[in-house]
């Protein structure tokens, strides 16, 4: 058992994610009249007819169907977006009891592997399905000479090795689509004939490592991945749910050829699941809702609106969904195989990360703010004993760049698997030694971060990213316009490093949003409660 039970840290992470997603929805949909909760992380008591649902973030596209369900059944869904693995921990620990009535994830497979979950969930009702597929640019398909319905994972692997294919994929530790892809590709490349075993995983490690050299984009959520893919423009393919890929084609004219590899896929079946702790009325509301969602009207609407596959025989799949069958690759039957695969991905198989933390340690951070920052960094660093995804990764180069009126220090450490404990201890010690003084030179410091990453570090082939944490506005050094000019002059490969700003204390949302937008990053909100800063740092890990 590698993963810890959910702690408060995880809980707040979910709250932050909700805020970020709601903000994202607001930006992209231009106010679709969706009701937005001012403080979605807060506990709310059960209200009759309103289900508090812990849900996979991609289900945001079900709003139309759910609104109709509410009109027909009187049952309202109040969703809190979460990742599958976070949800599993939350439920297993009992922390979801009393806060949520139901859970609606892309899949319950991982959830069910967690001890203590079985007796907390009931009424699992699959609503629709969507396999994890590969969306490839049409010109790339042509260049590779692929027959879309004949492509196998081995062919994808060969194209990557030949340098002819790059792709984006979500972080398997935090997102089910990434995890499903990891299982598919591990099955495909190991030649496993049945559910994956530890032996299959170790046999395939060499090929898997090669396969992941082609991964040029990573993300904590499938929504941001799609945005980043469109923005980057230079990545050939995207691993995501078939439904997401087809929706991108419809909504943004992405023109992706959707490939379900011939040697097998892992399919999400979206089981609407009640928590046994839910009040009686909530459970009855849940039954009414699932009865409606399984009816022909909702099934027809959901396949047409979201490109997921219906689960009743009377409703045909929407146009555009291929009907030839694929082998369904089994999900690992034990937690040790599932976690072993995740751990291998995180620490051995994926491209390493180079991460720069640009940290505001100006005078205003003195006191409680600085101690929160130190705690958050210590939590993020983890220890040699930390579970997968809960410490800096093996091979990761971590740079702390505290700043006030200027960058005060550049503190770099690489987490060498042979000296892991020492490296993590050193990062934690550096974080603990931070002190507050000076003004706030946000833009000058960001420029230094880009320059630092430009100098060849421990690994040239790495995911690079910058996290900016500040509690105030820019007061000295380069101005926003200067930074814009600096960024525009960077060579294209360095421009691809995103900045993930964290809104904290008295920082200026507009200023930080601009930075996120300019660099292709994403804003995270840590203005919530005590734990929100930990949560924000934690969420960002999925993007590094």
């Amino acid at each position, binding site marked *: 058992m590698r993963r810890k039970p959910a702690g408060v840290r995880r809980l707040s992470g979910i709250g932050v994610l909700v805020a970020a997603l709601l903000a994202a929805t607001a930006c992209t949909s231009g106010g679709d009249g969706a009701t937005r909760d001012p403080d979605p992380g807060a506990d709310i008591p059960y209200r009759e007819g309103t289900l508090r649902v812990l849900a996979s973030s991609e289900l945001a596209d079900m709003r139309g169907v759910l609104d109709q369900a509410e009109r027909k059944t009187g049952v309202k869904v109040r969703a809190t977006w979460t990742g599958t693995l976070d949800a599993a921990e939350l439920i297993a620990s009992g922390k979801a009891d009393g806060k949520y009535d139901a859970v609606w994830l892309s899949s319950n497979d991982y959830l069910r592997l967690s001890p203590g979950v079985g007796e907390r969930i009931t009424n699992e009702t699959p609503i629709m399905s969507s396999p994890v597929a590969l969306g490839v640019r049409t010109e790339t398909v042509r260049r590779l000479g692929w027959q879309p319905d004949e492509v196998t994972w081995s062919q994808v692997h060969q194209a990557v090795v030949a340098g002819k294919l790059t792709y984006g994929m979500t972080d398997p530790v935090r997102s089910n689509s990434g995890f499903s892809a990891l299982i598919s590709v591990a099955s495909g490349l190991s030649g496993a004939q049945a559910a994956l075993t530890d032996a299959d995983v170790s046999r395939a490690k060499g090929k898997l490592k090669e396969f992941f050299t082609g991964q040029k984009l990573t993300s904590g959520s499938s929504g941001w991945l799609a945005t980043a893919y469109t923005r980057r423009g230079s990545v050939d393919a995207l691993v995501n749910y078939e439904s997401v890929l087809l929706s991108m084609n419809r909504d943004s004219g992405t023109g992706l050829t959707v490939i379900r590899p011939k040697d097998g896929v892992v399919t999400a079946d979206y089981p609407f699941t009640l928590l046994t702790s839910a009040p009686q009325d909530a459970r009855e509301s849940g039954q009414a809702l699932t009865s409606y969602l399984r009816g022909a009207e909702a099934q027809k609407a959901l396949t047409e609106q979201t490109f997921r596959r219906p689960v009743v025989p009377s409703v045909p799949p929407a146009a555009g969904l291929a009907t030839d069958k694929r082998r369904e690759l*089994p999900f690992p*039957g034990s937690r040790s195989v599932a976690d072993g695969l995740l751990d291998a991905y995180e620490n051995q198989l994926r491209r390493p990360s180079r991460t720069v933390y640009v940290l505001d340690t100006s005078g205003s951070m003195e006191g409680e703010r600085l101690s929160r920052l130190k705690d958050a960094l210590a939590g993020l660093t983890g220890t040699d004993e930390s579970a997968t995804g809960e410490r800096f990764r093996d091979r990761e180069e971590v740079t702390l760049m505290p700043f006030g009126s200027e960058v005060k220090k550049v503190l770099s450490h690489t987490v060498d698997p042979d000296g892991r404990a020492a490296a993590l201890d050193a990062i934690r010690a550096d974080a603990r030694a931070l002190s507050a003084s000076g003004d706030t030179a946000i833009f000058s410091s960001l420029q230094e971060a880009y320059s630092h990453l430009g100098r060849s570090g421990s690994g040239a082939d790495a995911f690079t990213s910058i996290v900016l944490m500040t509690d105030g506005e820019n007061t000295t050094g380069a101005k926003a316009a200067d930074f814009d000019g600096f960024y525009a002059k960077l060579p294209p490969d360095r421009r691809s490093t995103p900045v993930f700003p964290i809104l904290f204390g008295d920082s200026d949302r507009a200023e930080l949003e601009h930075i996120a937008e300019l660099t292709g990053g994403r804003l995270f909100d840590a203005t919530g409660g005590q734990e929100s800063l930990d949560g924000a740092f934690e969420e960002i890990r999925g993007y590094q």
Partner: protein
Amino acid sequence: MKRIVGIFLAVLLIGGVAAAVVAGRESQVSDTATKTVRGVIGSEKAEFFADPDVVKALDEHGFSVKTETSGSWAMEELTLDGTDFAFPSSTAPADELADKYQVPGTPPRPFYSPLVVVAHRSAAEVLARNGLAALDGESRGTLRMGPYLEAARKERTWQQLKGASAHAELTGTVFIASTDPMTSNSGALYLAAASYVDNGGKVVSDKAAVARTAPLLKQLTVVQGAQQTSSDAPFRDFISGVGNPLVLVYESQVASVLLQKQEVGDLVVLYPDTTVISDHTLVPLTDNGRELGALLTTDTRLRELAVRHGFRPQGAAAEFTTATAPYQAFLNQRLTGVRQAPVPTTEWLHAMAQRARS
């Protein structure tokens, strides 16, 4: 139809209960006020209880039944305070529950259904061509358990079977997807049927037999990886065109879809030549629960509705065969050539499931 269910439930939930009471009185079948009866049921009976006609028929007898679903073997772990009945899908978990809650008498078994395997036609034809199944026409056949279990023991892959290469989805180890035998009835009954065959046609009833059958049962289970906890989910995956090509379900799940005149595509129903019958057994926890159990067993209209949902009413075989006459291409109405294996006691079934999952 399901839409109507949704609307109907909604009406009930929004406060139409009063109206239902009035309707019940007007029908003059019962002069008592509507009694709300709460139960926890196996998922395969959810649509039966949600059927507006079932709701109406129960209402005419003064019952408003509220249900939630659970794996039959998981019911033991639920808190059943305020629950009037538990309705697992076989006698073994029912006996456990009856024992735990000290329910006197024999719990009623209003209806039953044999376990079957659904296959897409491509898979069924490949199995038949390789002697693992025998087809009676396009949409119905027999799964030959002996050869099938032998293939499983040898970890045969589809690629090794003649004719599979024409179908992209037929690769990997040949297995029947079943539910988690630790929590779900159909998965446990699958092990019951397989162990009966593997044990030379004798029901497993001691440690030695558990040990003898354990390697095969484990083989049938581990290849599946993660298993679902209710029979509804794998069947939905199958209908959705995803999931494993062979799925263990209750005959009632298939019959229900057929009786609702839904399109089933290239579905083939394979009756294992040795199978287990699932006796849906209602464990009454209160007097209301007891009355409901009796009603489901004796009321002609409710039996008719049970048939509509694919169940075979106990002691009224003709009611099922008449209703399913148009679907003989799929259903083996008289279970010709199907041997019924007895189910081991809970103790041994649990032991087998545990060994299989370990």
